């Protein structure tokens, strides 16, 4: 297909989308029939009160949790039944809400594991991507340290480095700034802004300043359903969202 056609397709088909996506745990409905679309290159924040189903929702996108019903489309492909590791190879990257690294390996080894299949054994490319990712999060000078010895905030940054080292098309970050110091948050915001445009980013975040500073658009989940989607200004002004955050229930 011609270059121009691809660009057109990118504008028309959303990069990641869900249709009627639901998940029940026993009798509990964690995510309820969510229709969701994000175009390529957008930074989308997903916010909502505790228990709104955010983590379950992105867990289904990346394949850690199987949906009860509904469909997931990624880059024009139906990936609902695809196992997680194949979704990653298709160009997704995911960082865990609770830090998940290889605690007994060095930082370099951690990131190498993320990059080694991506460049299919091309040693120069692997090393380059590994180093670049560590530099981007500001951990390059510690690359020979054991990951488990890092502070909590640095472990979170390492996890982000593992994600971006794969040069994914879609980066899913589950509460990345939890436990970071203010200075670290500032550089994180800058990092996300730099990455935006190159890749589509889904950001689950509690820190409203980070959300407002980075997101192109925001989707609000409440009680498993989509409450609103819009620009940061729209969401700030939205009465239903304010009410949800104040703890009032909406039918």
């Amino acid at each position, binding site marked *: 297909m011609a270059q121009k056609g691809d660009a057109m397709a990118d504008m028309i088909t959303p990069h990641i989308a869900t249709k009627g996506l639901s998940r029940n745990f026993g009798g509990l409905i964690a995510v309820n029939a969510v229709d969701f679309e994000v175009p390529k290159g957008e930074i989308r924040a997903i916010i909502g009160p505790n228990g709104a189903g955010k983590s379950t929702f992105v867990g289904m996108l990346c394949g850690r949790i199987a949906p009860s019903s509904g469909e997931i489309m990624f880059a024009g492909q139906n990936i609902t039944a695809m196992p997680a590791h*194949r979704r*990653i190879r298709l160009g997704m990257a995911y960082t*865990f809400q609770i830090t998940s690294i*290889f605690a*007994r390996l060095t930082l370099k080894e951690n990131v190498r594991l*993320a990059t080694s*299949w991506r460049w299919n054994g091309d040693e120069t490319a692997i090393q380059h991507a590994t180093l670049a990712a560590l530099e981007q999060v500001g951990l390059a000078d510690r690359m020979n340290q054991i990951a488990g010895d890092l502070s909590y905030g640095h472990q979170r940054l390492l996890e982000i480095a593992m994600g971006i080292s794969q040069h994914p098309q879609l980066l899913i970050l589950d509460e990345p700034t939890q436990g970071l110091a203010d200075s670290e948050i500032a550089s994180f915001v800058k990092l996300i802004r730099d990455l935006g445009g190159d890749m589509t980013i889904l950001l689950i975040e509690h820190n409203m300043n980070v959300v407002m500073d980075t997101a192109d658009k925001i989707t609000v989940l409440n009680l498993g359903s989509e409450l609103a989607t819009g620009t940061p200004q729209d969401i700030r002004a939205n009465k239903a969202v304010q009410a949800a955050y104040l703890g009032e229930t909406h039918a």
Partner: protein
Amino acid sequence: MSDSKKSVIFHLGFLGLLFLLQFLLPAYHHGNLARIMVLATYAMGYNILFGYTGLLSLGHAMFFAAGMYGMGLTMTHLGWTAGPAMVAGFLAGVLVSAGIGFLALRTSGVSFMIVTLMFAQAGFLTILYFGEWTRGDEGFVIQQADRVFAGIDLSDPTNRYLAALLLFGLCLMLTIRLMQSRFGHVLIAIRENEERTQMLGYHVHHHKWLAVIASGTMAAVAGAAYALLFGYAGATFASVQYSIFPLLWVLLGGAGTALGPFIGTLFMFYLIDLSSSLTTAYMLIAGVALVLLTLFLPQGLVGEWRRRVMPWLT
């Protein structure tokens, strides 16, 4: 020099030392060391799964026995010569480990241990049940005339030592090569954090299955070689005890170290050898060793050595 090169050279040097030892050792220890090298090969196979991939099997005796009987039965009942019979032992190992791995890997953790234990128990009972061919507990002797490979008499102590060293050396270098490869790194990643490994884009289940096959096949080759070199196959080698032994050897020597299985086997062999001259209850030593190890030396001998002296060891 890179760490991986240093490690390769160190282990090649170690193999050279083993080669030289045969000229120095008195006959008794010379024979022991040949036996230890074959058993250490079994332990190295176990180590691929337990030490590097983090999967604790309590049923590896079934792989060891698969090789042993794959070799011994084809030789005794079909009249195959040493070469083809060894290949039969190897193939038996591949088949059994692929099949058992496929089934057992549907479980994890404690269930995986119990499932492997149960399969091995079923295997052991099967050998007893077909006693007409396997001669059950009593076992069968492989005639000296059959223990000849390419004109070399493997029952001769010198040839036997060299054959054991060749087997051990090949498997040692193969293990090191494997663990320095991308595949080996993924196995270690699975041991360290399975979920993260999957979310980095690796097919964890597939890697684990290949690890079971590599581990089981190496154990089977050791079993086949044991029967060929020492001329005996018996159901004892399929019993629970022989599933526990490699765990013990690997833990003692150091799980996830290339040389740990050998050091552990050597240590335990002589501990039991010495104590069995004192008491019939020599397994007491094994028991005490296991408890002390879990309490005080969870990394094993080579593991501690690596931690303190040579952090670049594979």
